[in-house]
Each structure stands twice: as structure tokens, then as C-alpha cells.
């Protein structure tokens, strides 16, 4: 088991570099040769963020409050990831998709990396330069930088999502657009629900 973990850790690090440098080839490799152990490391990375998030968002450094926030965020992200991947899988199968759910879930879990990057970046900026932004030239300049980085991470996320559907379900662009057209309203309603419950303001998709 320890051998499998070490090999999976190496594979995970290699995939992390790959989704930045060569996303197309990396996703092909994830779907063909990825192991479920890699989900463990994705989960570990997410847990690090949830810990940071709990500390930043909780006004008082109390273990019970921090733990409650950590557990709430972790469960919400897990449920969201499983729900979204399951929804895309079911709709993808209706569109003639082929493949295994396990492999698709692995591919989809790596699309959480850009989301994680954005949330980490925003948390850091919240601590260093908290909002609101003013209309002073420095405020506008910082806003431009923040929005540019957010847009880069968003487009990167779109590319990785497309690749996970392309290789995970073996679909072409037209079918993928059809799937996204159907799933987008459902995910939108889910996100509004999460907002109303006070779990996410920006959905952790």
C-alpha cells in the first residue's frame, strides 16, 4: 500500500505540473492511467485550503468554531464535487458518452485545482489588502490585476473541464456544449441554494 501511495504521489505531482504545461496530453494520461489514490492527494490539498479558510473567516481563534467551519466547508465541497461530476456523467451518458465514472471523477477532481488556486489567492488578498476597493488609481490598478488573474484561472478551469469531458466521456465539442447547456441551469440553481444556505458566495465548482 505504501508503494502504491508513493507512486500515486509522484503521479499526482507530475499531473499537477502537466495540467499547467501540457493539459491535453496530461488529461489523456489521467484518464488512461490515473489511479484513485490521486484523489487522496487532491483531497489533502483541499483540506489545507479549508484550514486556511477557517482561520481567515472565523473571527475568534476557537477550536470548536474552527473545526465546525472546516467540517462544514469540507462536506459542502465534497457534496458539490460529487453532485456536479455525477450530473455531468449522467447527462454525458445520455449524449452517448463512454467510459468509467471512476476515471471521469479523477479527471474532474483535477479541475478543482484552478478553483483552489483562485480561492487561495482571494483568501491571501483578503488578509493582505482587504476589500472594499476604491476608485483611486491604485484601487483601479489592483482591481485590473485581480480580475486578470481571476479570468486566467477561469479560462484554465474551462479548458480542464472540457478536457475531462472530452477524454472522460469520449465526446466531441458539439455534444460537450450540449451537456453544458443542460447542466448549467441545474448547477446555477444549486449554487444559488448554497449561497442562500450561507455555505458559498462564489461556488466551489
Amino acid at each position, binding site marked *: 500500500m505504501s508503494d502504491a501511495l508513493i507512486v500515486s504521489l509522484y503521479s499526482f505531482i507530475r499531473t499537477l505540473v502537466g495540467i499547467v504545461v501540457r493539459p491535453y496530453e496530461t488529461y489523456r494520461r489521467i484518464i488512461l492511467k490515473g489511479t484513485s489514490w490521486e484523489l487522496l492527494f487532491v483531497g489533502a490539498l483541499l483540506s489545507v485550503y479549508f484550514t486556511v479558510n477557517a482561520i481567515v473567516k472565523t473571527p475568534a481563534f476557537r477550536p470548536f468554531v474552527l473545526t465546525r467551519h472546516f467540517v462544514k466547508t469540507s462536506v459542502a465541497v465534497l457534496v458539490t464535487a460529487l453532485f456536479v461530476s455525477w450530473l455531468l456523467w449522467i447527462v454525458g451518458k445520455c449524449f452517448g458518452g*463512454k467510459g468509467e465514472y471512476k476515471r471521469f471523477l479523477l479527471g474532474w477532481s483535477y479541475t478543482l485545482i484552478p478553483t483552489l488556486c483562485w480561492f487561495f489567492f*482571494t483568501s491571501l488578498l483578503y488578509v493582505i489588502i482587504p476589500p*472594499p476597493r476604491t476608485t483611486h488609481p491604485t*484601487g483601479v490598478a489592483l482591481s485590473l490585476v485581480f480580475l*486578470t488573474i481571476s479570468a486566467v484561472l477561469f479560462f484554465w478551469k474551462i*479548458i480542464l473541464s472540457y478536457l475531462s469531458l472530452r477524454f472522460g466521456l469520449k465526446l466531441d465539442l458539439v455534444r460537450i456544449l450540449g451537456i453544458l447547456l443542460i447542466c448549467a441551469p441545474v448547477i446555477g440553481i444549486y449554487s444559488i441554494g448554497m449561497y442562500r444556505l450561507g455555505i458559498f458566495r462564489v461556488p466551489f465548482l
Partner: protein
Amino acid sequence: MKDALYERFQKKWSQTMDLPPQTVGPLTPYYKMVTKQLKVMPLPILFLLSTALIICLFFLIGSGITFLTSLLQRGF
């Protein structure tokens, strides 16, 4: 030896043919042109695209961009 080679060829062939080729009708050459740039190291191109988009947004909504930033900064 010949069988092992043939098996490797068959495996590679099925991997290649498993995925349907990507076609978008008459837009296929433009699609291939765009995706060629995004297959390897897409971040610099995404950065240029995002910069252009955000500058256009700034010209569109002006200093309203600070309101959007404040909203997103509280979004985590």
C-alpha cells in the same frame, strides 16, 4: 515477438480510434488553429486574452470594476 508487436499496435490503435475526431463543420480549421495554441503551455495565451478582456471591461464599465473586485474579494 511479432505477436507482442501486433498487440502493442492493436492497443495503440484502439486508444487512438476510441476518441471520435473533433469536427465543427466549416469551422474545423479555425478550431484546430485555436486549440493548437492551447494544447501546450496555454497560460501565457490565456493571460494575454484575459488582459485584453479586462481592459475592454474597464472601458465598458469604468471604475465600476472596483465594485466587481470588492464583490469577488468577499466571495471566498
